[in-house]
């Protein structure tokens, strides 16, 4: 899986309430309605700055807080290709993989707003084209890569008819 796009930089501890505020996410499960509010408490109008395939790049503990899957879903719906962070909160990480949004653990300190990035999940690297730098990512297990390739756990389950990973190993 290769992904190319520009970096949008955020800090540490971006919680799920910042990703999409509770006041919207309870009233609907329609992501089209929610998507315009993505990150609006941190960066008003962020949704309108995104080009398809762009990356959210953050520090530690991205996605802490609630278990609501609306957070990664809204990010995916907005056209973000992957989230790159130094670390993720556990449930966010799970949810992201499950819905087919790559959550990539990598040292993001050197990445700046607007940098052009290329991510190769199989090779386990992030190329910062702007800075001419290669960063190694924390590798994903083959099971997780397969879930991502298929676009999420739902497609995985439909394809394999179960959660048994060994079927394709």
């Amino acid at each position, binding site marked *: 899986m290769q992904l190319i796009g520009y970096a949008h930089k955020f800090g540490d*501890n971006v919680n799920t309430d910042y990703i999409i505020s509770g006041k919207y996410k*309870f009233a609907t499960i329609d992501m089209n309605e929610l998507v315009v509010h993505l990150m609006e408490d941190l960066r008003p109008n962020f949704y309108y700055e995104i080009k398809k395939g762009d990356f959210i790049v953050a520090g530690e503990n991205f996605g802490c807080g609630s*278990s609501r899957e609306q957070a990664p879903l809204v990010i995916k719906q907005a056209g973000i290709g992957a989230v790159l962070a130094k670390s993720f909160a556990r449930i966010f990480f799970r949810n992201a993989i499950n819905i087919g949004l790559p959550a990539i653990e990598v040292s993001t300190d050197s990445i700046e707003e607007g940098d052009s990035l290329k991510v190769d999940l199989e090779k386990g690297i992030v190329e910062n084209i702007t800075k001419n730098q290669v960063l190694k990512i924390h590798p994903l*297990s083959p099971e997780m890569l397969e879930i991502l390739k298929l676009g999420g756990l739902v497609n995985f389950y439909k394809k394999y008819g179960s959660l*048994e990973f060994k079927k394709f190993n």
Partner: protein
Amino acid sequence: MRKAKTISEKIFSDHLGRDVEAGELVIIDVDFMMGQDGTSPLAIKTFEEVGASSVFDSKKIAMVIDHNAPSPSEKVSALHKLMRNFKDQNKIYFYDIGDGICHQLMPEQGHALPGQIVIGADSHTCTYGAINCFSTGVGSTDLAIAMASGKLWFKVPETVKIVLNGDLPFGVYSKDVILFIIKELTANGATYKAVEFEGEVIDNLSVQARFTISNMAVEMGAKVGLMKADDKVLEWLKNRTSDEFKTYESDYGAQYEKIYNFDLSDLEPQVSKPHTVDNVSSIKDVEGIPIQQGLLGTCTNGRLEDLKIAAKILKGKKVNSDVRLIVAPASRSTLLEAIDEGVIQTLIKAGATIVAPGCGPCVGTHNGVPADGENVISTANRNFKGRMGNNKAFIYLASPATVAASCIEGKITDPRKYL
């Protein structure tokens, strides 16, 4: 020789029928699963997308309407209706408005038991670790797949052990303990890890008070906050279940990623300041900060003991005229017991507003959204910006005693002078 194991490793090994260690990715038969009204609608939609026709076992699933209960809008009502229809079709356990908060109901109704693996589509599912249950929060897709298949993928977690020694001083409660621990470990201090809490402090706490600690394990990133099932837990479980269960303790020599030792004999009441949970101070550093709203309730501190402590402080007194005190009991049975014991009468006489058992204003969709610039003192577990529905309000987290004392004075107050 068999390797020494943590509680989590033992529970996973027994479920799989083979020895597993931390770090392994495994597929597990889940013992019980739960969704609330913020996560179930999406799970139901995904369940349908997967093409599942019925749930794998209707007796292992519960849904709870607690986050927006009763519904504040027609849109939310439509989602609640979706859940009720799903319940009618699949005959699962269902708790409707007024029954209580999912994390109170799971253990209270005997759905979460020691030694089980329980998932909930809510981040504070880690709460039932207090009764030796491996319980953890997942998302809606996880819940959907688990409802269809009975299974879920997990990584067997590494464990961090937290040993709490000493005698808690007068006026210091389990909420103060966990706020202190989160300050020490930070919001990221146990990410992906299971936590095992032990020591004299835990032994001396009631089961209700222990839930408060396990509930907030996720605020340091933990997957679950486990404690052993001692006699108090077994006593607490009596009359809640007739099912058999097995209890687990870690082996001597088990591998811990880290062990923390704290002596809490001199702990003061703690307060978490806006806008992160790990931004914690001792009471003396925040005393005097004016407040406009108090919240007594939530899955952290909405149990009978919590309401009783607040009532003891508020008895014969009045909530300050500049403060609204909102009380949301954790469950219908909590409310009934509190009525029986005169606790509710005391709180109402003091000027508190009682709302339906449930999440109340904790998550900011209804029941008491603060105004711009207002300060709230709350017994909840999160104080993120916008958490209570207004990103220009400020939320302080504290024990029920501190919240009650602060509501009398209209400013953050050390509760010890009222006890």
